[in-house]
């Protein structure tokens, strides 16, 4: 249980890190290390060079943008995401999702960017980013800077759109829909374990209590986070009553394609996806302003 030999560099500027990655295409980026270190310890990853981006101060910003959104540095830890006042005010969905990750000692080190790039299908933040319509900023020495929508970023199990030499540097969250309520719900076998499944919901209601906009994304039910567009469409213009929620759950159950694994059968995961979608949508609706009676 010791990592295979590697070389280590910990540049204190982004330029320094991008230069190293351009010269060493097989290098691995080390962020908080809470997913990569286990892989190194078990020798499932054997990179020749580790580029530790933990000393780069410019990756740790949390900025309340003028448009009402947020710009989050990729190096922001889960612990900060969970407690930061600007995040809790504008995108409490991200704060809730972060507080469900692992345990406090994991959240103290693990980072937003690390979680998105590692892209475990059961992870909370990828699903929250997809529900938030987040835009991910990728930078490289030779390719410059490009932006990818979260919903296009996750390709398959543990695989994202990050190209060799690129670093995820920031996550831009647009302004949330006015008055929106948000909720993240999950079921895990033990506290702090990866979720068997989870659901991230954003709900905005009009004055009559009907759904003006609903967004729903799920984790743990496929190789990537799943945006449940059919369920969103089913809810548009309806009050969030039991019939509407059940129709959304049915749309979710039809949309997801979970697989059997050691932890749960596909049938159970499909069932769970429906249950969690209802819980998350209902709670988000309760939290939406004007939605208290719904």
């Amino acid at each position, binding site marked *: 249980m010791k*990592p295979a*030999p590697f070389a280590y560099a910990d540049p204190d500027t982004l330029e320094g890190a991008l230069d190293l990655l351009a010269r060493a295409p097989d290098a691995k980026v080390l962020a908080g290390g809470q997913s990569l270190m286990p892989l190194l310890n078990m020798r499932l990853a054997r990179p020749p060079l580790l580029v530790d981006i933990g000393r780069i101060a410019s990756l740790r910003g949390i900025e309340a943008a003028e448009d009402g959104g947020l710009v989050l540095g990729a190096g922001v830890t889960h612990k900060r995401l969970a407690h930061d006042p600007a995040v809790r005010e504008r995108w409490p969905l991200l704060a809730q999702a972060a507080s469900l990750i692992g345990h406090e000692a994991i959240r103290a080190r693990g980072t937003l960017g690390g979680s998105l790039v590692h892209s475990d299908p059961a992870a909370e933040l990828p699903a929250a980013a997809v529900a938030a319509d987040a835009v991910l900023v990728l930078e490289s020495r030779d390719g410059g800077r490009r932006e990818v929508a979260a919903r296009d970023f996750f390709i398959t199990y543990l695989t994202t759109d990050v190209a060799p030499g690129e670093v995820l540097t920031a996550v831009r969250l647009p302004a949330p829909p006015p008055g929106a309520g948000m909720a993240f719900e999950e079921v895990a076998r033990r506290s702090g374990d990866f979720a068997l499944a989870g659901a991230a919901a954003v709900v905005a209601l009009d004055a009559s209590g009907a759904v003006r906009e609903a967004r729903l994304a799920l984790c743990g039910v496929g190789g990537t986070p799943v945006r449940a567009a059919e369920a969103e469409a089913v809810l548009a213009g309806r009050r969030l009553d039991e019939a509407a929620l059940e129709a959304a759950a049915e749309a979710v159950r039809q949309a997801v394609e979970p697989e059997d694994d050691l932890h749960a059968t596909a049938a159970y995961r499909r069932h769970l996806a429906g249950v969690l979608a209802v819980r998350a949508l209902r709670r988000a609706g309760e939290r939406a302003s004007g939605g208290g009676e719904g």
Partner: protein
Amino acid sequence: MAGEELALGDVEREVRFTLNGRPASARVPVRRTLADMLRDDLGQTGTHLGCEHGACGACTVQVDGEAVRSCLMLAVQVEGREVRTVEGLAAPDGTLSPLQDAFWRHHALQCGFCTPGFLMTADAFLREHPEPDEEEVREALSGNLCRCTGYQPIVEAVLDVARSRRSG
């Protein structure tokens, strides 16, 4: 190619940091974990290793006051930082810290393998949450595994410290 990539970084480094309030240093291969440096290079074997992949919490230490898994950090990452281990809890004359004393009084350990991790987790937690309720304590300790006690006496010991702080 691998040779070239190796040349872009260090394979060995001298790490200087503060350990339990005193300056410490060690020359280590960069792949050495913080846990292994503490135990093997510095002889501080109070920090225990169970799973070596972040699942059990036995290796929990504090870095700049925050509880972290020392099996999931590289030794070189504590350069210039403040590390606290279980060896730093008791007073120099051996007087137990209030938390250690509560563990002792409540029989919160049997084999003791998990104890350093629980102590360092609970110590950091009580600093950040001086007046926790039972549910918060259980949540805070949920990342540490114990195969002996059934957890109840550990939770009681931590609550005892919180209570005596409130009344004291």
